[in-house]
């Protein structure tokens, strides 16, 4: 079971934003889903590395890529050929 304050905490971790009036419904729905997930407690077996699968590697060589103009075309704010982002600190 998760509480309403857990839901607010998860929304904060997930950076999705949640308004006060949405919290009760999200909490109820979340708990119904988590109740259903409890069936996973009965899963038998230990995790084992996947067999028969190998990683696919390639050389780290420069290859053609998007032009700067194309790469910036969808950005909401740009400045001098760079993407402008909100401040982090």
């Amino acid at each position, binding site marked *: 079971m998760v509480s309403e304050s857990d839901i607010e905490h*998860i929304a904060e971790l997930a*950076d999705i*934003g949640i308004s006060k009036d949405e919290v009760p419904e999200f909490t109820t729905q*979340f708990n119904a889903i988590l109740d259903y997930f409890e069936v996973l*407690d009965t*899963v038998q077996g230990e995790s084992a590395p996947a067999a028969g699968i190998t990683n696919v590697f390639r050389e780290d060589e420069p290859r053609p890529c*998007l032009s700067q103009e194309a790469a910036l075309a*969808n950005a909401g704010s740009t400045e001098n050929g760079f993407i*402008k982002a909100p*401040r982090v600190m």
Partner: protein
Amino acid sequence: MAGTLDFSPDDRYNAFITTCLEVPFGDGALAGTAVAVKDNISTTGIRTTCGSRILEDYVPPYDAHVVELLREKGAAIVGKTNMDEFGMGTTTETSAFGPVRNPVDPTRVPGGSSGGSAAAVAAGFVPMALGTDTGGSIRCPAAFCGIVGLKPTYGRVSRYGLVAYANSLEQIGPMARTVEDASRLMSVIARYDPRDSTMLDRPYDHRPSADIAGLRIGIPEEYFGEGVDPRVAETVRDAIGILEGLGADTVPVSIPGMRHALAAYYVICTSEASSNLARFDGVRYGPAVDTRKTWHEAYQELRHERFGAEVRRRIMLGTFALSAGYAGRYYAKAQVARRNIRQDFERALRDADIIAGPTMPTVAFRLGEKTDPLSMYLSDILTVPANLAGIPAISVPCGRVDGLPVGLQLMGRQFEDERVVDAAFAYEQEVGA
């Protein structure tokens, strides 16, 4: 052969988010064939929204591999189809661009999440379309709209240029009115692409054959049990009877891991989604964010405003399932359950060549009928196992209940897409679809 195709459908089902009125096309196997593309597959110069407000104005600067292949073969890409937001839904009602209506009965949903592609095909706007299938999103709408839909083996079609939702589960696949057209589209899109590192070089070059004499069809009891409308089960059993009449044999098989399939699926897909959708921050694409605010403020505000409730719910569920203290109970267990299910299918597919069952437990729901998320999730129970196992699965129309289409689902061994296509073709030819 090259030319221009005029395309102006009366889109009364809201199947399209974007339509292209005059479409130039080239020479090739699909020259001049109108093909609709689900709106989570990148198309240079044509906006690609994923059914979301957050990508409302996003115009990709590159084509997905499957789109390059379509263009090379002369297909006319006539539009981008409506879908559940980021593929998260079973009805196409979570689209930010409004729900799609089922052409068979416009008071019903077309299924989802590739509901726009299914409706466009079922309404006759296009002969074929691309969908994507993470947990049933090609097969469910194919079943509900009475068309054919194939989820290829994982690794057979490149995901390069597909906007990711749950990478380890999803595949792009063909949807069409006939098995032959679905197979034709599959032979265009299943070509090796080194840009998708989960791909294997197993091109699909196949013409369907209706000869299924001696084919062993596994019937899993779990696909005909609780939660499946008995009339749907009966219709599907009758369809299997027709395959027997064509010389196939049936054998009982069992997929005991089915009891964990749905929970495992929702833990895995939401976990992958919580990571994948973190990229939608409004910085590199999307509407401009207020750069005077702090990162978290601006980010949360944008995502609250631009993501729909189901997308936010799934991001939160995945965040929770991966969080410290819970990852062992949810994510790790789900991976074990997934491996068990894959082994169940491997075992069953030693006694049988293909496995048959219904695609969906019911016929199409009424618009607005599924309001509670969990009850919506439960309707995916028969489709998610093929995604967890990575095996090919096709849905072919096999009759009606209450005037609404029912889909026969045929699943096969990894990389034996040809075999499920043949069985579907044999059925379709026999009943004269």
